């Protein structure tokens, strides 16, 4: 197995939520015990519905939010011991909306070279040249160097965001829904660019997305999150071809491939995403699960190792127990 660049060990993050004037605050467990390993060169996709804790997890991995408990390691060093600048040298984000993530009053050149300024780069004379190099790499014409974000199209802006993330040659890039604000034809250009850059610069991606068709195309590993926990993780191929957790199955079942012979799938998931302040007992997925058993309301499923990762579901726990009994 290749080298681990980023590792999360049982990290949690809770937020204290006000429940009204003069009432006690209640904890909201946005991330609730996540273990993740990001290996060099892989594309790990983090999928799940809104509110499942994807973005909170990403913020912790970027060092922008300290975990409430658990530990994070970057390149073998505890993340807590590194300064913001050190973390930023290794991990960089690309955000969803290129309209709001670029400062409208700065020129493209300023935006792209800002990380060099922030890192106190010793060689200011080379900044312009390096910015232009990276612009070329991401497919931006040099003539936009002095333009403002408002003069660029959505696809070009996302290229600026990518250039800004890459100018200090980070090793890990965290892409939070990098293409969901873009048009279809532009989305494919950006995905192609991300693929090329990964090969050229040896990057590792953590991709957060709810577009499962995009995830399937890009990812080498997939982690499915539900209510703050990774309920299934494994090789992209395995998770896609033989999903085990009922939630993963429902997610994959709701991907709308452009096939006019198929109708709209019925996911049987029910309407309600549970309130994270008041989590269901036992397996948190049981109220929406098509395969729920009586024991699921009380028993918290433990991670069961699968060939390439793990799954947290009582269905497989029993399977494992049976195997243990017979052997």
């Amino acid at each position, binding site marked *: 197995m290749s080298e681990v660049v980023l590792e999360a060990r049982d990290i949690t993050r809770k937020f204290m939520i006000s429940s009204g004037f003069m009432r006690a605050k209640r904890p909201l467990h946005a991330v609730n015990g996540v273990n993740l390993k990001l290996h060099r060169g892989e594309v790990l996709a983090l999928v799940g519905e809104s509110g499942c804790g994807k973005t909170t997890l990403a913020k912790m991995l970027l060092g922008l939010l300290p975990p409430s408990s658990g530990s994070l390691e970057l390149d073998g060093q505890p993340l807590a011991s590194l300064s913001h600048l050190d973390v930023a040298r290794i991990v960089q984000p690309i955000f969803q909306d290129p309209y709001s993530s670029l400062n409208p009053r700065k020129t493209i050149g300023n935006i792209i070279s800002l990380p060099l300024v922030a890192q106190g780069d010793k060689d200011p004379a080379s900044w312009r040249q390096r910015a232009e190099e990276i612009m070329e790499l991401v497919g931006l014409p040099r003539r936009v160097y002095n333009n403002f974000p408002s003069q660029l199209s959505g696809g070009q802006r996302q290229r600026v965001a990518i250039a800004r993330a890459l100018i200090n040659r980070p090793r890990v890039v965290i892409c939070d829904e990098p293409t969901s604000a873009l048009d*279809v034809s532009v989305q494919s250009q950006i995905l192609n660019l991300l693929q090329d850059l990964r090969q050229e610069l040896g990057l590792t991606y953590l991709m957060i997305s709810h577009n499962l068709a995009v995830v399937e195309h890009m990812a080498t590993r997939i982690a499915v999150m539900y209510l703050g926990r990774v309920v299934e993780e494994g090789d992209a191929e395995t998770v896609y071809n033989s999903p085990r957790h009922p939630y993963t199955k429902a997610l994959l079942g*709701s991907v*709308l*491939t452009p096939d006019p012979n*198929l109708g709209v799938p019925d*996911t049987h998931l029910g309407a309600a995403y549970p309130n994270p302040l008041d989590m269901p007992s036992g397996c948190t997925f049981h109220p929406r699960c098509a395969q729920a058993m009586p024991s699921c309301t009380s028993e918290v499923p433990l991670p069961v190792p699968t060939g390439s990762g793990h799954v947290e579901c009582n269905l497989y726990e029993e399977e494992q127990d049976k195997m243990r009994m017979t052997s």
Partner: protein
Amino acid sequence: MSNKILEVQDLTIDIPTPSGTLHAVQKVSIHVDRGETLCIVGESGCGKSLTSLAIMDLLPKKAMRTATRLELAGESVFEIGERRMSDIRGNRMSMIFQEPMTSLNPAYTIGDQLTEALRRHRKVSRSEARDRAVFLLEKVGITAAASRLGQYPHQLSGGLRQRVMIAMALMCGPDLIIADEPTTALDVTIQAQILHLLAELQREFNMGLILITHDLGVVARIADRVAVMYAGQIVETGSAAQIFSAPAHPYTRGLLACIPIPGKTERGAHLGAIPGIVPSLVGKMSGCHFASRCPEVQQNCTSAPIPQFEALDPGRSVRCLQAENAAMRSAGQEGVA
């Protein structure tokens, strides 16, 4: 009674801007039958949302709308006054907008907003309106419907809000629903549920449905007929099966190549791309709007306006000289043989 509930012919929308007239929508013709789903697909700025607003007579004041025909259930929108139009809007036809967050009024309860249109259009009592609201909220899959009526939009999740929007659109039992990107802001699981629900309700109430979207996956699964728009024009129309199995316009083909399809597209391989950007619609345009990005562009593509070519298959049309030539050639060969 005719089955056609919407007939639009040569709809054109011009918007004056400081740098010239913006030809946002050019000669768009669509029609919808009862019980039929028409999907309008296209990228941002192609005029698909303006088309729907024009049908609802909700365009901004400075936008100029012309059409040779714009009829709702046999009534010409041009002949009836604003008053009659208000009677029709929200009553015989209604609209579902993209963002349930911004299109619900945060200061009124769900119940107030649901019953408003029904009380405006029909002579019903408060309690009758309330019953209808509860009935429809249950229909769209909202549990504890009666207790939701007193809640405010911020107390509901995105999926629930979109369901409320759908229930609201159904309150008066319309003949036509226009849904503008109804699921774009939602999770995939909720998206599937909402589309499933829309299709079911449409069958049940035998309504016409115009679905505006940029998501080809949604289109393929729900559409009976598809109109592909590019830069203010419809470039191709046909049944969903025709469009997806044999796209005739290079733009449609380009769009289809852009999306990764699990199981079909090779993982990690390069996706198709449409190089270049959408042309500006300000000022005079000549020739094919897609010419600057088209891989199959020929000299004659840019010289004259490209007419809609109808003789492909029944119910099919395409705005492309090369597709027209190809169709002619194959027809000619058949004639010779």
